């Protein structure tokens, strides 16, 4: 088995225990609620009989271990439980909502990379004006809270200019153009902060790479600046960028929670917030697990991609 195959296999294999540990964590989290969740859910309808009935329905009167395994078993069968309040299948609910969140986060990350990386390269080897502008953009982008930027964008583009709608959503499969209209502001909101981060990382990585001895040798070979920066330096510099992008995806998922609430997008983030406010624990449990799983999978993909880019795998632990 080659070094690379072994790396891939290890990484994939490691994902399983991580996911399991995550599921345990989420499971325990919900059951740590002080007091009786059922009573809280029922509110004033909490007569002792109702409480007992619901507890039995939800399986909360069974030993903890058996609850966990039956939940886990359900997951493997594709059944994440029920939304307690509406009795909808949670799996169905999530299936509708995950694409929205995915579209939001993936589009934002893509835009951030498309803008951040080239600007970062320019900021590392360009003129003073470019560098100063990049610095300002970076600091501003990182410091401004996402959702505040969102409200400003809504103020300008929706309220004042009326170009784009402030809230609402149309699925991509239904009407791409409308989807674009509704998603533009949310994606811009998330992507701006992210682009600033990517820019900063790219710039730092490029600067560090350009100072390495092999770059001097490239110049000694007579290669032009263009080839040195874009063919060679970027290649080596992209490793930290990939790592950061992977980690940042988690941040984006968090940001998506707020942005979805702000723009009224029917994604998983908004679902979680609503569920928490409703004390709808089964929904919270299922959605948190799904988001966490998503993040773990993205990390896996990032690691694999990193392995692809890094020729020294196995010989060097970055």
């Amino acid at each position: 088995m080659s070094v690379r195959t072994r790396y891939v296999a290890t990484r994939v294999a490691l994902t399983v225990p991580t996911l399991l540990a995550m599921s345990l964590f989420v499971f325990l989290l919900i059951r740590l609620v002080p007091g009786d969740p059922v009573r809280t859910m029922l509110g004033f309808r909490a007569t002792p009989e109702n409480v007992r009935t619901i507890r039995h329905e939800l399986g909360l009167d069974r030993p903890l271990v058996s609850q966990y395994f039956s939940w886990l078993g359900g997951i493997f069968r594709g059944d994440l439980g029920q939304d307690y309040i509406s009795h909808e299948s949670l799996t169905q609910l999530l299936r509708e909502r995950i694409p929205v969140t995915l579209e939001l986060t993936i589009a934002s990350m893509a835009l951030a990379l498309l803008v951040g990386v080239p600007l970062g390269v320019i900021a590392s080897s360009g003129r003073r004006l470019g560098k100063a502008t990049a610095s300002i953009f970076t600091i501003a982008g990182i410091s401004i809270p996402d959702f505040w930027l969102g409200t400003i964008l809504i103020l300008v583009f929706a309220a004042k200019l009326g170009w784009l709608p402030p809230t609402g959503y149309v699925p991509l499969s239904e009407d791409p153009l409308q989807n674009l209209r509704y998603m533009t502001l949310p994606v811009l909101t998330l992507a701006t902060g992210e682009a600033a981060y990517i820019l900063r990382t790219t710039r730092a990585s490029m600067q560090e790479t350009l100072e390495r001895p092999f770059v001097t040798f490239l110049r000694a070979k007579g290669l032009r600046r263009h080839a040195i920066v874009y063919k060679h330096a970027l290649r080596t510099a992209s490793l930290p960028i990939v790592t950061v992008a992977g980690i940042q995806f988690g941040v984006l998922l968090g940001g998506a929670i707020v942005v979805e609430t702000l723009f009224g997008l029917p994604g998983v983030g908004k679902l979680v917030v609503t569920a928490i406010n409703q004390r709808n624990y089964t929904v919270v449990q299922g959605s948190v697990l799904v988001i966490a799983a998503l993040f773990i999978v993205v990390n896996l993909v990032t690691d694999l991609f990193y392995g692809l880019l890094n020729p020294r795998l196995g010989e060097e632990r970055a």
Partner: protein
Amino acid sequence: MTAATVALRHVRPRTITARLGGRQAAAGIGILTLLVLVALLAPVLAPHSPDAIDADHILAGPSWSHPFGFDALGRDVLSRVLFAYRASLGVSIGAVALALVLGLPIGVIAGYFGGVVDNLLMRPIDLLLALPALLLAISLISITGPGELVALFAIATIYLPILARVVRSSVLAVSRELYVEGARARGVSHARTIWSHVVPNALGPAVVQASVLAGFALQIEAALSFLGLGAQPPTPSLGLMLADGYQVLQQAPWADIFPGLAIAVTVVAFNLVGDGLRAKLDPRGISG
């Protein structure tokens, strides 16, 4: 350490600016001190009571006596921002301080002793890192219900792993240095070595990281309050103001702009401080 590094250490920067770690850090520290003073002196500085309702001026715009305008209930936005700022800043600094106080010993022990201890301590820490930050905070809050103090603990929980890792990395680097081995060879006890040699040198990167994290903590606190999961009314919070301001965005944008601006400026200050101090306190670049 070579003779050269020892010699360099004795070259003391002359100006205050240089002492503080350069222009960036100096500017950041300056702004930050100002902001902290403003926060502490909020009751004194606020021109009006943050809860005083002036029904005649609901959603009125900025004026000389009310530079930030009025909100939906006719309250002075400036005064509210000052008090809310105090609360939010308190939560964010408190959260990071707590994370540092808890994370430091974990990182030191894991990094210094290594091996099984390291693994034992770091595995659960890594698990916490596997969740997106805001999600983790939200999950924790879902257990206990919303609230300001809860938000503080939740944020501290998010940042504890990061700080523990940074401390651990820098302890690992420092432990390899010859002077630590020298101390052990002289028979200095573990505790002494850690206290006198390892911690002072490992603290730098953690402080840099903490400064930057404090800024992000403020943003997360605001986000949590915005979602209704943080401070609950009547406790003031910038996030709550942003949520309220969003409701009246068209009629009274100032109710939304100024709280947001307060957050942005503070985060910039924290970042300046962190980045500026980096050259001095974290030359190895451990704090990423």
